[in-house]
């Protein structure tokens, strides 16, 4: 199998231009972020921040600075409200499992939206093994939460509501403030968690404005290093640890703090927030150019998710009819354009993106969907290159399809 990958990589030789649009699934870490991280591997602050020696105190100082900065960007009151975790999956697991275990005497019901990311959806479902129940609130055709059904779903047994601030596949910006209001009006004891991994650095997001109790953020989604994320937990809210070990600077996540990654995440955050308006304007401009270009070159497309102000500026999700997504991602890879698809052609029982199905897309529309996310590091030339090769790729795949499956 590894030999096959070597051959696959050889097929990419001679690519003249590469454009990475799969920022949903990983990202290119810019050199300025890498440079900021490097000293912390072996030059300074390489110690354990809870130990009484110079490298330890150095680590303590730099980590506290990072806590401070991330608190500021999130709008947290105090830095103790932030817990660094090894990624957003861990932060979402901590948020859901930790809340449920800590609140289990109060009730056993979790309410989420039906388009939550997998690392919320599956953790919530897993809690059923511990006697909790999960209610999924539907969304409309653009992915907006049905607030009436949210209100109806919340009862006196409900202890936790979790709704992502921005849907990772559709870019739909939820009205979290209203959802929190609905939840707290029904029961002020309810905890409200939001996965803010696609909001942080892309839309104005402030935990105090929104009045959420917990919020998850992730480093790679703002072009920081992978393997680091954070959970915001409002002061005074009780949460159980979900893993045990030596406690360091953070009560909720044991183990030795990952200083270089924390610094990298903080540096990426600084770069995202220093010129926030400029950055998001550029993302949105490039995204619109990409989407408009694709729609002008091709027919039989569906635009997935909302348009305009209610959509995150980086997100483009298009269903390309009569072209299967996996074939398209491979075809485009051979031309140096990297993106992902909501197709699920990797299993015998083929289940495409649950998000696209939830907004009423037919399965064949989901199989042909492509997800692209722009960043401030992309250029006009990059977009022009995508607009040159993507229609060619779609047209070749559609020639193979021919009249198959055409009704």
């Amino acid at each position, binding site marked *: *199998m*590894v030999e*096959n*990958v070597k*051959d*696959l990589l050889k*097929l990419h030789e001679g690519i003249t231009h590469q454009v990475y649009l799969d920022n949903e*699934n990983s990202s290119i870490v810019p050199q300025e972020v890498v440079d900021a991280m490097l000293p912390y591997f072996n030059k300074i602050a390489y110690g354990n921040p809870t130990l009484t020696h110079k490298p330890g105190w150095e680590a303590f100082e730099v980590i506290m600075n990072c806590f401070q900065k991330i608190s500021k960007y999130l709008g947290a009151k105090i830095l103790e409200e932030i817990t660094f975790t090894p990624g957003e999956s861990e932060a979402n697991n901590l948020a859901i499992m930790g809340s449920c275990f800590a609140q289990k005497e109060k009730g056993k019901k979790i309410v989420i939206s039906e388009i939550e990311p997998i690392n919320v959806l599956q953790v919530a479902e897993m809690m059923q093994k511990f006697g909790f129940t999960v209610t999924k609130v539907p969304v*409309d*055709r653009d992915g907006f939460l049905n607030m009436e059904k949210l209100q109806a779903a919340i009862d006196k047994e409900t202890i936790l509501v979790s709704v992502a601030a921005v849907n990772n596949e559709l870019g739909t910006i939820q009205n979290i403030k209203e959802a929190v209001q609905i939840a707290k009006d029904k029961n002020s004891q309810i905890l409200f968690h939001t996965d803010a991994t696609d909001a942080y650095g892309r839309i104005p997001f402030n935990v105090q404005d929104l009045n959420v109790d917990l919020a998850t953020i992730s480093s790679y989604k703002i072009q920081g290093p992978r393997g680091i994320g954070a959970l915001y937990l409002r002061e005074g809210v009780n949460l159980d640890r979900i893993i045990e070990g030596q406690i360091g600077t953070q009560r909720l996540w044991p183990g030795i703090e990952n200083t270089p990654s924390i610094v990298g995440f903080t540096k990426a955050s600084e770069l995202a927030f220093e010129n926030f308006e400029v950055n998001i304007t550029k993302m949105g401009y490039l995204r619109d150019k990409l989407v408009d270009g694709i729609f002008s070159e091709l027919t039989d497309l569906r635009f997935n998710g909302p348009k305009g102000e209610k959509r995150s500026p980086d997100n483009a999700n298009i269903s390309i009819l*009569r072209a*299967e*997504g*996996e*074939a398209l991602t*491979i075809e485009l890879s*051979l031309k140096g354009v990297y993106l*992902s*698809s*909501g*197709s*699920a*052609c*990797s*299993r*015998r*029982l*083929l289940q*495409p*993106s649950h998000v696209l*199905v939830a*907004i*009423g*897309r*037919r*399965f*064949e529309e989901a*199989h042909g969907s492509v997800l692209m996310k722009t960043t401030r590091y992309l250029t006009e030339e990059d977009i022009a290159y995508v607009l040159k090769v993507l229609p060619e790729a779609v047209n070749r795949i559609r*020639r*193979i*399809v*021919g*009249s*198959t*499956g055409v009704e």
Partner: protein
Amino acid sequence: MSRIPLPYNPKVMDLFRNPKNLGKMEDATVIAVAGNPACGDMITFYLKINEQTQIIEKAQFESYGCAANIATSSIVTEMIKGLTLEATWDSITWQKVTEEIGGLPSVKFHCGVLAVGALKRAIRKYFDDRGSEPAWMPKENTFEEKQALEEEELAKTLSKRVKPEEEKSP
């Protein structure tokens, strides 16, 4: 989202990039379709059969699906050219197709199964159309034909689960 790494071998990639015997055949003796777009794979086979010798003179395909679906469909058209229908029926199985293509990731075995299902359906249709089933053809569907039917049944279930058009789609 598809998450399982798919290290396709060079033969699969070659047939994906340059599929052999691609396209609609205007003078096909028999046409058969298997699969459903809702499941993400669907194949059409066009066979030109010599009515006297029952030899497959020409085979072409069109397909909607992943790289493995395209490559397995293409290789089937190459494998059966010049064979009699009986020899085709006896020798072509999904395992044989997978072997011929140099192996597939296990999650892609169903692509070979669907391709052979479509082929056997085409042969069965040829004899059904003529009202004469040969003795060598089993009455009961083969494994591959059953799998194709199962996938098509699944597609119906999937389509039913999709919310009403008027409520959701723009």
